[in-house]
């Protein structure tokens, strides 16, 4: 009997410990879930690291970068233009520094950069407090811009006050498209170089990207209805991706593979993958790895039978991206529109500053 009582007491203690354990697990799970949800970066809130995945100066296209200090104290910013001109996977970086006074917005055209010239006339491109000397990018430049909040000594500082936008313009047609910079906020006050985008020092990068798009070669329903279509309009989409793993001290070399699943309106799915380097720009449906899955049945080799489709991209490492769609009528008159991608999941990454 004493044995049974002892066993019963032991059983009760075991149950109680389970309940206690479940309770503790519950608290940790809730906290972890909360942490995972709250610590992912994005394009609609200020942050301490800004990533502009697509900056171009090609042909007649040029880019204006806008960066704003949304805080009430001075903000030192260390910026890096990244480009991969030879396609080897090595991303060279050119850096410069900005100093933004409280609440100061600034802007520059990348083909011209920005000089320090206090005599700039009222309303001109250089008017305002010059944030620092910003170098121009050379003709043919395609790449990205990354900016990090630092202190006066260049050490990472998490004020969480930067926001940015990019305007891409075609000076021959007047066309324009615009997207928001991707912002990563600090999670901790103790920041160090390299920057850990792991949810404990800075927010994480997305683990997946969702792209709403029309397959290459689709007819544009609005141009066909209102414009010069005649069943010859043409939609194409350019996707640009930037790795969150950046070694800005020694150059960036981060090869990998992006896996994707494309769904059309019939719920048919098509999968594939394409290689990714530190910075990748790809005309979807116009490369060997994306021909069938991102191309309309109107074009040779195309598999997508509907105008509206979604692609879910799964990333081996943290990536951010921007899509730019081009809508042409039968005469070749083209309008473009950029949009930020939808994001999900979380991936850790590291950025190493010089």
């Amino acid at each position, binding site marked *: 009997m004493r044995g049974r009582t002892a066993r*019963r007491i032991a059983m009760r203690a075991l149950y109680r410990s389970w309940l206690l354990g479940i*309770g503790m697990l519950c608290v940790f799970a809730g906290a972890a879930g909360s942490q995972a949800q709250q610590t992912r970066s994005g394009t*609609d809130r200020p942050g301490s690291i800004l990533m502009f995945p697509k900056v171009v100066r090609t042909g007649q296209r040029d880019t204006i970068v806008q960066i704003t200090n949304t805080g009430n104290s001075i903000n030192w910013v260390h910026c890096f233009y990244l480009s991969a001109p030879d396609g080897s996977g090595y991303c060279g970086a050119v850096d410069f520094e900005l100093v933004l006074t409280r609440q100061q917005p600034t802007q520059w055209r990348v083909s011209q950069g920005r000089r320090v010239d206090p005599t700039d006339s009222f309303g001109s491109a250089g008017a305002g407090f010059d944030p620092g000397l910003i170098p121009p990018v050379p003709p043919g430049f395609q790449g990205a811009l990354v900016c990090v909040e630092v202190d006066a000594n260049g050490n990472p500082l998490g004020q969480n006050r930067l926001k940015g936008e990019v305007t891409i313009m075609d*000076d021959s047609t007047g066309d324009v498209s*615009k997207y928001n910079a991707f912002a990563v906020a600090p999670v901790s006050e103790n920041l160090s170089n390299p920057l850990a985008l792991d949810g404990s020092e800075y927010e994480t990068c997305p683990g997946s990207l969702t792209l709403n798009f029309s397959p290459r070669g689709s007819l544009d*329903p609005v141009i066909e209805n209102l414009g010069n279509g005649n069943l010859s309009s043409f939609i194409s989409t350019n996707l640009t991706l930037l790795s969150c793993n950046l070694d800005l001290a020694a150059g960036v070399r981060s090869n990998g593979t992006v896996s994707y699943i494309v*769904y059309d*309106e019939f719920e048919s799915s098509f999968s594939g993958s394409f290689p990714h380097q530190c910075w990748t720009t790809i005309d979807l449906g116009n490369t060997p790895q994306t021909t069938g899955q991102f191309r309309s049945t109107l074009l040779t080799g195309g598999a997508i039978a509907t105008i509206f489709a979604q692609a879910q991209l799964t990333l081996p490492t943290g990536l951010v991206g921007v899509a730019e769609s081009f809508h042409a009528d039968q005469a070749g008159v083209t309008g473009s529109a950029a949009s930020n991608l939808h994001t999900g999941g979380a991936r850790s990454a590291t950025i190493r500053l010089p």
Partner: protein
Amino acid sequence: MWRCKRSEGDMKNARMAIRLPVALLACGLLASTAVGQKVSTEEAAGYLVFPKVVVDPSGALNGVPMDTVIRITNTSGQPSSVHCFYLDGTPRCTIGAGLDGDGACRTNDDCAGGGICTLSSCQAINFDLNLTANQPVGWRASEGVVTTGFCVGGTSPGFPCSVDNDCTGGGVCQAQDIGRVPPLAPGIFQGELKCVQVVGSGNDPNIPVNRNDLVGNASIYRVNNAIVDVQTYNAVGVQAVRSDGSSQNDTTLVLAGENAQDREYAGCSAQVIVDHFFDSALLSAAREVTSEITLVPCSERLEVDDNPAVHTLQFVVFNEFEQRMSASTRFRCFREVQLSQLDRRPGQEAFSVFNVGVQGTLAGQTVIRPVLSGDGNPGNGILAIVEEFHRNPNNNAVRSAAFNIHLRGDKRQADTVAY
């Protein structure tokens, strides 16, 4: 005695055995509600807001026909039911046929017989969508969805159809019924679209469901035989606090608020921030910029509100000299306005704090803060998008781009959306 004790002990054990699954259930509930859901333009959500949808097939508003393509995607592997509302924010003449015969107008000059061009309320039109797993759908707002399939093959694959004869070039019509969406043409429509993920079945299929599976974006076109101008923005997603698939209790969505138990969705932000070029800024000799902002409230009584609440907004504007100016404005259920007309009448834009002639620099930052109402009801949160119009002064050709605004801070006051 022993029997009694054993019985008591067994009962205790039984109670503990009951507590265990209850604890697990509570744990699951806590875990599903503990996550930090938010209002976002990039994450999947259970409630989508498209702040601006415009249809003007005749081009009466600005000389170029306009239409909007709306895309909504179910990112889940499970089917989703969606209940949507168009809210008509088109100003209309109190007297006169206006620009489209139905009273649509821009200013009083568009109204005959001394009529006033005004927007007193936003009438709602609702419709339902049924999305299969991972299904993306899209439609022209002018055309809606009035067919039951899509063309396959032929020369117009993907175009809507109901029978094979609707498809050109020998295509066949393959059934895919996503529901019916009312067309917004003929006539002029300016307004917003709100979509809620709902249970989709049972006695009240329009009860919201605690899931976060929807993403969306809208492309606004200005197109004629010589112009193709397209701008795209992401829908604002408001995430359900729980994402466990359970049904909510009623058709009133509670966005945040001080009482945690009442929260059903994430809350609108305390401030929104807009980076913009000042109006009339010259980015080059062939590129002069103006910006328009479209404002919609987070709180709304859809279908039943003849007298929507007035929202007061304060604007703090900074230029590149760190100089600060302010302005304020009011609106009801929808307002689309050029920045320079927020604080000045049409024709007086050069005197606005949003004009480059006043500010002297190209770029500016504007922080918009909704003024808190004293009674806490209705909520005063706002959502917005901004459009940039680049005009070539040499030939007056206009191209445009849209972008989402930034959000900052949490608002204590709850917003509610009732239908």
